[in-house]
Structure formats: C-alpha cells, structure tokens
C-alpha cells in the first residue's frame, strides 16, 4: 500500500504572519489549518472551495513554493524538505488559472516549451525539439511547425491554455497541480480542455490535483472530491458518493447553490446560508461553519473544533453531527 501513495500531506498548517508597522506581531492568517490527505499514483482529486478558503495556498505549498508552517509533505515516500527542489519540480507540473498571464509575452511557443527542458539538463537540441513536437501533438496543437513560432497573443484562450498544459507536461511529471485551469475559458472551450486533461491523466497515469470553485465540472474526470472551507478540508469522498450523499452542511449548501441549466430555476428560490466565509485572521471558535450552519449544536459546535469522522468507509467529514 505504502508505495502506491504518490503524495502524502500530513497535518499541514500554513500561517502567514501579519505585522504592524513592519515589526510588531499582529496575528496570523491561517490560510491552511491542519490538512491531511493521500493521493495515489494516477489518481485525480478535486479540491473545491470558495475564494479565500486556502485552496490556492495549499496548491502552492504542494508545489514547494510556500514552505508549510507545520506538517509534512512527502512525495513518493520521501519528505519534501529532504528533496532536491529542482528534481522535485521536474516531477510536478503546474497549470495556472490565467493562461495569458502564465505565458511570457515575449517568448514564442518554442521558447516557452524549451526553457524547462534546458533548465533540467536536456542539452541536445534535437532531443528537445523532438520532445516539444511530441508534447504539442499530444495537446493537439498541430501542425506543430505552425505553432512553434507563435507568440501567446497570437493564440486563442483555449490554445494558450494548451500551451500551459504542454509546458507542465514537457518534463513528464508524475503529478499535475491545476489551479482553476478552465475558469477563464468560454463554455464551449472549457470541455475541450477538461477532456484533454482527462486524456493526459489516463495516458500517463498522472496524479492530478484539480483546484476549482465549480462543482459542476468536477465529476467529469476526478475520482474524489475534497471540499475546503475556512482553511480545512471539511469533507472528502468519492465523487458519486459526495454528490449523492453530501454530509457536511456546507457541502449541502454548495450543492444546492450550484445551478443546473434548467428553466424551472426561475420559479424557485434557493435555500442558501446567509453570511460570509470566515475571516482566516480571526476564525470563529469551534467549527468555522457554525455561524452559518442550520444544524448547529449549541455548546459543542461553537466551542470545540470538530474532528474528522468517517461515518461511511472512505467518506470523511469534519462535523459534529457525525460523531
């Protein structure tokens, strides 16, 4: 079992210190506050949450861009701290949200894709060329010769995102972290990119962490969903299980609030919890969702932080309702 696990995240806390006048301590922003999960080889998971819940910070830590305040991340059984970062990053690809911002505007597609190869020691230019052609064909930017000299502004949004995906894949990584890869794209292109990611994942047995705020796109290629709220993963389950049997009150609210294109929607009102997501600087005591929760247990939820319960096999939920 042990060697099947690609990425293990253990009790990760990422706190950012706030300072007053540059030197006085003014508290911590607890962007990620105790997150645990395992990702198996070739598994795709989605982290779903609203803006400011800490999902992008978690992604940046997994990429090795932000060191965790506390906790461990191990990749292929080896601790991240003990790893050579250059070697680690060659095995982990990153797909950014905004393709235009992620691509250097002064480099053409050839330059963009060649750079990671050059940095990671592929000295032979013919070899680099071959790899670039291979990856461009795989992301369906063909004919390859036509795309190589193009600059990002000459490509459409969907094509730019393909270049970003190609760049993340060019070193043959084992894990892809995709932070909202389709949220900037149009509906008709979105599906194309999702299907491309799915195809690549199956073809190369990739681990994928797909970060999104949109539950509707999740089920199309991930196996498990992690729901994040207020710096914690509040619910983790297989996609079908989570969509048909959501346990956490927040997950339920999220599912209710997500619209399907159905004309009947116009006639009904949605039951949505009022209020705002918690401040991560001064999070509420106990469960962070308790001020908005319909099922609050007074004296418990507002006092004590809920533990991670497992009411059904493989379905974890951080909520006192399931103790």
């Amino acid at each position, binding site marked *: 079992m042990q060697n099947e696990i690609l990425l293990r995240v253990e009790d990760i806390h990422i706190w950012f210190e706030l300072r007053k006048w540059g030197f006085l301590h003014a508290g911590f922003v607890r962007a990620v506050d105790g997150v645990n999960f395992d990702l198996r080889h070739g598994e795709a998971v989605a982290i779903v949450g609203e803006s400011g819940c800490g999902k992008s910070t978690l992604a940046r830590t997994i990429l090795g861009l932000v060191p965790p305040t506390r906790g461990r991340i191990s990749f292929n059984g080896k601790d991240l701290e003990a790893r050579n970062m250059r070697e680690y990053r060659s095995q982990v690809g990153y797909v950014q949200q905004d393709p235009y911002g992620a691509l250097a505007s002064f480099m053409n597609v050839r330059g963009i894709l060649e750079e990671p190869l050059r940095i990671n020691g592929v000295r032979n230019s013919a070899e680099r060329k071959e790899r670039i052609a291979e990856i461009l064909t795989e992301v369906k930017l063909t004919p390859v010769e036509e795309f190589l000299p193009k600059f990002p502004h000459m490509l459409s949004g969907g094509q730019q995102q393909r270049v970003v995906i190609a760049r993340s894949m060019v070193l043959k990584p084992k894990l892809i972290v995709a932070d909202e890869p389709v949220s900037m794209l149009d*509906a008709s*292109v*979105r599906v194309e990119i999702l299907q491309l990611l799915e195809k690549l994942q199956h073809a190369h047995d990739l681990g994928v962490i797909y970060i999104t705020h949109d539950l*509707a796109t999740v089920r199309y290629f991930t196996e498990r969903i992690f729901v994040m709220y207020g710096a914690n993963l509040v619910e983790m389950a297989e996609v079908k299980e989570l969509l048909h049997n959501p346990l956490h009150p927040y997950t339920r609210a999220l599912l209710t609030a*997500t*619209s399907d*294109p159905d*004309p009947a929607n116009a006639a009904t009102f949605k039951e*949505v919890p009022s209020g705002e997501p918690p401040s991560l600087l001064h999070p509420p005591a106990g469960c962070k969702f308790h001020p908005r929760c319909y099922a609050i247990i007074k004296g418990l939820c507002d006092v004590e932080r809920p533990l991670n319960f497992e009411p059904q096999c493989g379905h974890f939920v951080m909520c006192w309702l399931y103790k």
Partner: protein
Amino acid sequence: MMKKDTLIRIENLRLYFRTGGGIVQAVDEVSFTLSRGPSMVIVGESGCGKTSLARAILRLLPRNVHTYAGQVSLNGVDIMQLGDERFRREVRWIRIALVPQAAMNSLNPVIKIWDQVAEPLLIHRLVRGKGEAAERARSACELVGLPVDFLDRYPFELSGGMRQRAVIAMALVMKPALVILDEPTSALDVLTQANIMNALKRIKREVETSFILITHDIATSSELADEAAIMYAGQIVEVCDAARFYHEPFHPYSRKLMASVPTLREEKELEFIPGQPPSLINPPVGCRFAERCPYRFGKCEKEPPLAEVGAGHWVKCWLHN
C-alpha cells in the same frame, strides 16, 4: 404590429468600432423585443458583442465609434432620435439603468455607500432634499437585501456580495423600467451568487422592473430567465422562451452550447465546439457559425435572416427557414 405591452424594441441595431486592425462589427443588425414584466437573458461567449450591445442600448459609447445606427424604442418612443442631452436627462439611469461588469470594484473608495446610491437622485433633482434621497436610498437597499446600517460605510468595509448589492441598489434607486445587468455574479462565490440571484428574483416579483441579464454563465442564467437571446459573433442567432432554450433550442450553435454545459444533477456526455469564433473585423460572408457548424450545407454561404419559426421564437439559420 406593435404589441401594447412592449417595453423595449430593438431593430437593426449596429455598433461598429474603428481600430488599428480595421472596423470591428461588435453589434451587427441586432433585433429583439422585450415585453413589460418578463426578464431576458442574453447569452454568449466572450467577444461576441454582448457588452457592446448593452452599451449601445444605453448610448455609453467610447470615442472610436464608426457606426451607431438602428432603432431602439422604449414604450413606443424611438430613443435613438433623442439628442444626447435629452437622452441623459430622460432615459439613461432614469428609465434604463445598467449594472456594468465588475461594477462592485469600481465604487468610489472615499465616498460612503449612501452617497453613491443616492447620487443619481440628487443629480437629476428628482428629490426635494437629502432627507428624501436618503429615504429612497434606504428603500432601494432594503429591496436588494443590503442591511441599512451598511449605507454609512465605505466600499472597502463591505464584502464582494454586499458591494454587488449596493451597485444593484444604485441601478434600482431611480425605479427604472429596465435594468441591464452585465455579468452581475460572475466574480462572486457560488453561495453569494445564489444569494444575489434570490434577491433579483424577489425584486422581479415585487417591483415593476424588467431585467436584461447579460452573461456567459448558462447554468446561472437560468435562475432569472423568462426569455433567452443567444448571441454569436455580433449577431443574435436565436430568441426564444427559456424553456425552449434550456431544453431544445433550434440553432446549431445554441444546441452545441447547451451540450457543453456541465451539469451537477444529470449525467450527460459533454461536447465542445471545435474551432473558434470568427474575427469581427471582416467577419465571414454568410452564416457566421457555418465554419464550426456540423449541419452546414450549400445555402449557408448566404446570410440567413432572423426568421420567426413559432410564436416568439426567432432563429437565424437556413435549417429552420
């Protein structure tokens, strides 16, 4: 010809821009009618001209306008014929208001919400004094579900959802007959989005205001839609009632678009539309969707008219003509 309860009728509206690359036909021969009461969604992908359409209706034009022509009649009066000053005094914000895209981030940071919501009332001198303006601002805020004590705060003290409500209150404060909402919820979180949509639905029932919702988010648009207009490459390709659009639209583009929307509750195979929309500088002759259309045939080389195929159902496609 003209129905009695017609609120706004747009005929052959054109808005072209002059740019370095040529003339951009952002809005090209757009026609539709909206009755008093129901709300309409205008759905389209980025760059299809939907925001330009909103600007053309409100005559909020940039400097590089090349052509601005057509008819826009509001309650039977052609407002395109009005002079700019009269348009400003009598139409803009008084009878047609706009919630622009990303408006919540363009609130003035040094002016309290109260002053910003009441500003149009004071500028148009429609109230007797600040007291009455405050009263009207307060009732507009109650309408959108913005707590009244928030009026005394500055924009940075409000969350995104509350700022968006304030912006909607600004549009509603003059009690206009029509409010155009340009992507009102696209920058917001799912729960906030649902809350705002609930508020808009309530307003629709309580007040005599019609909405035109402009969006690319098809799933969320269904929350407010009575009628739908689908826009592609500067043109409206289909106008129909919401039930038709979300279940079985006629135009191949509408169909493909619906097939590409991921759903939460229903299992379906997602499709995508290969290719990309044409450039609006020298758009193709004939049907603009032809290049990506799976059903195209010889006739598509000529431009199809927007033809009525059923009651209130218009399609711009040779297949249904």
